[in-house]
């Protein structure tokens, strides 16, 4: 286990790009669960939630605006995608990418 440590706020709000370099949205949430092992338990991130507002995406820089648009839900064209941890390449945490094809 290498000891790279990153603060959550470095990841949040980052654009995630797929293998083709296209943005699929911004990291909005990290869902974690418990992993048991012989010397105790750890909380590990299982899934990333990546949200996009489609054409309104450029507006969503501020947290307040983002939350407002989400409250409006479908009206704002909000879509959320769940990405399992295996698929998220955090080699460069500031530029997260989708792994694989």
């Amino acid at each position: 286990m290498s000891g790279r440590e990153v603060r959550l706020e470095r990841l949040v709000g980052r654009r995630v790009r797929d293998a083709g370099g296209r943005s699929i949205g911004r990291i909005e949430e990290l869902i974690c669960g418990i992993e048991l092992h012989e010397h105790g338990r750890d909380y590990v991130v299982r899934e990333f939630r990546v949200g996009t507002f489609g054409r309104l995406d450029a507006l969503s820089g501020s947290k307040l605006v983002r939350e407002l648009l989400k409250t409006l839900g479908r009206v704002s064209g909000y879509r959320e995608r769940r990405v399992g941890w295996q698929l998220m390449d955090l080699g460069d945490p500031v530029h997260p990418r989708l792994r694989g094809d």
Partner: protein
Amino acid sequence: MKKWAELALGIVTSIGGFLEVGSIATSAQAGAEFGYQLLWVLIVGTLSLAFLMEMTGRLAAVSRRTYVDHLRQCFGVRFFMAPLIVVLIVSFLVLASEVGGVSIALQMATGIGFQWWAVPVALAGWLLLWRGTFGVVEQGTAILGLVALVFAVGAVKLHPHWGEVVRAALPSAPAHDRARYWYLAVSILGASVSPYLFLFYSAGAVEDGWTEEHLLVNRVTAGLGNVFGGGLAIAVVVVAALVFSTRGIRVDRYEQISLLLASPLGRAGVALFLATLCITCFGSTLEITLSIAYLLAQGFGWEWSENLKPAKDARFAMVYTVVIVAAALPIAIGVDPLALTNLSMTLTAASLPLTVVPLLVLMNDREVLMKHVNGWMTNGALVLIALLSLVLFVAALPLQKLGGG
């Protein structure tokens, strides 16, 4: 039985808490210069406050967490700094105005200049906060604040033409001094819908241990309390319209406002006015000082409660101690209390989007409020209030320049 006592207390609190330096001053100015014509603005302000208080109270009762707590957690610390800093500055100015209101009342009662009263007033307030509990602050000021009912008596004794009063509930454009009219409209809204009111209210709901069972108490307190409280502010406008407007007097100083009740109630009227000004402003002094301490403590996660001994929440106690003393300084060096009041009301109005707009998100969060999220009516009202707050944000400062003189 306990429910009824709580209900009664809640209503009394809002009546006693509604009138304070800002609403007395702005209502008196509005009545003197435009008769009943600005009454509709007061009604809009009162209704807005009632909705906002109901919502922040509901949020606190259901989640057992204060509005500030949610504001920080939902929107993150980066956004949170904006309402934090703006509300701190604005509330501090309003607080200084309240200290000014008490000091002016004491000056007129004793003949000793208001500058000399600022520091003693602040120390007396501090002592109450230091020794008193939340109940003492909330209920004590509320019950004493009922002296403000004297405005209702004054208004009735002047026999206003009630038809005209009712007609003024509908908006109308001014025939003269348009900039001044809209400037006063902004000040009235700033005086009615102060952010400290709902910060204090939601913190109070947590201090008093509200749960879902208190939702009725919450609705009645926010609704009826503000109807009565707003009614008193309307009475101030009516009295000012009949006493000042008919004689062409424009209110530039608190000394003039003190004559409001002299005409319906004679010499006793002056004394009662001074008592009302003194008590209601003192009550607001305590509430705003606590609100500032609540804002910082809840925003940064410090221990806080007006019911704890100061040693147990040292940072919270330190904040209210420093704030109340600091707020006395502008008045102690002789800043004009009425000018300061007017400026703080405009700035309050301009600051509203930062505290109102986030409610659109919070009050629709099912994870927090479950089945108690906003319905179509409360959401509709909230959207209108949020739009109004954006208009105020844009218009307040230009109007201060055009019509503030």
